[in-house]
């Protein structure tokens, strides 16, 4: 019988169950990388009252931003610790938004969607990131701007995001309709439906 030795012994307490460390930055996408010109880019938040808050790229970039250092965890089992981003807190973007709905559907250029509870996007837990490691965000990693929700599996950090639509129920997004968990907490290993 062959005996598996393994060699990484990733017993780092920052590593959720079933995850291993990677130094690279793998890419997971369902289709081609969309090409998005920041001159055409816009971001919106749409509420149940029919109100739409909009930002052009210049307006978005002018918002207060912060440096973010976080661990990220992909459902395919890799984790990357201490990644460095720059972005705008969702608290800033939601500051003027009035809604009674508790859930959000994020929509991306290219048609991708993912569902999130609003409460998990607020209080300093989520950002719209536009820089990675000191450089503008590469298109294949979601540029010009992506969601960054590092406390959930990384498919929730939608690439090429263009808007958030408030929803009353936690309706599933793209991967969630294709077998992935509705919530996606890596510490509870909420990988699959």
């Amino acid at each position: 019988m062959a005996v598996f030795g393994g060699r990484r012994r990733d017993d780092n307490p920052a590593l959720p169950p079933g995850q291993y460390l990677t130094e690279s930055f793998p890419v997971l996408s369902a289709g081609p990388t969309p090409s998005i010109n920041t001159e055409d880019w816009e971001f919106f938040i749409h509420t149940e009252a029919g109100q739409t808050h909009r930002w052009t790229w210049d307006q978005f970039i002018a918002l207060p931003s912060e440096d973010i250092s976080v661990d990220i965890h992909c459902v395919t089992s890799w984790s990357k610790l201490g990644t460095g981003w720059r972005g705008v807190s969702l608290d800033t973007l939601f500051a003027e938004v009035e809604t009674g709905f508790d859930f959000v559907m994020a929509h991306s250029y290219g048609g991708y969607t993912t569902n999130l509870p609003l409460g998990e996007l607020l209080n300093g837990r989520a950002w719209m990131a536009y820089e990675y490691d000191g450089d503008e965000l590469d298109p294949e990693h979601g540029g010009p701007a992506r969601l960054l929700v590092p406390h959930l599996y990384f498919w929730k950090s939608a690439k090429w995001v263009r808007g958030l639509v408030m929803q009353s129920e936690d309706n599933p997004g793209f991967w969630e309709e294709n077998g992935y968990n509705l919530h996606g907490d890596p510490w509870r290993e909420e990988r699959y439906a």
Partner: protein
Amino acid sequence: MTSRAIGWLTGNLARAHPLTASARSITFTVPGWPGNDAGQHVDVRLTAPDGYQAVRSYSIASTGTGEEIELAIDRLPDGEVSPFLVDDLELGDTVELRGPLGGWFVWRPEQTQPVQLIAGGSGVVPFIAMTRAHASAGSSVPMQLLYSLRTPDDALFRDELSQPSATARTTWHYTRTVPSGWSHSAGRLTADDLRNETLPPEQVPLTYICGPTGFVETVSHALTSLGHAADNIRTERFGGT
């Protein structure tokens, strides 16, 4: 919040054979396996004597119902799990398996759109499952494969893909070394190659691309430039270790 977890099953290595110098086909008997669609993958979990565990996700080369699944593993030089599966695992050994996983990068026999498959290296594995599903379903939908690989020696499943009875035609493309007498010189796939060797946009094919990230980026970008709608291109990438 529901978080029903798919459970781990035990897979017993029933058959194995080398595919190339670095790749191996391994077939497990998995009691309780529910069957899988072509293109789905499975998590493989290995446990060391001290309890340390490692999990990796692999595409499944087999398809359909039944309690056997075939994987085709390419040994990553710096990998932790793949060298064990390729070099060490013996007949009768067990691993844990979780799946089938993924509902997007799949082909189902009831699909009616023409299908173009484009593989880079070991990205061919889900397409082996798709060509098998196509053949066993007797599908009349056009399906063809463009298989880009470094050298002729790197081909996985060459005999199967080259069989006269294969219902999906395979076009071979070599990036480093071509067979003697080959009409095309070695080199990366170009937009011209893709125009000449894949189903054209006028046929509105559904195109699946699987390979390393750089390959998938290049090919998918070229296809959209040729006029294929992004909605008709599905991608799966592998990277990291």
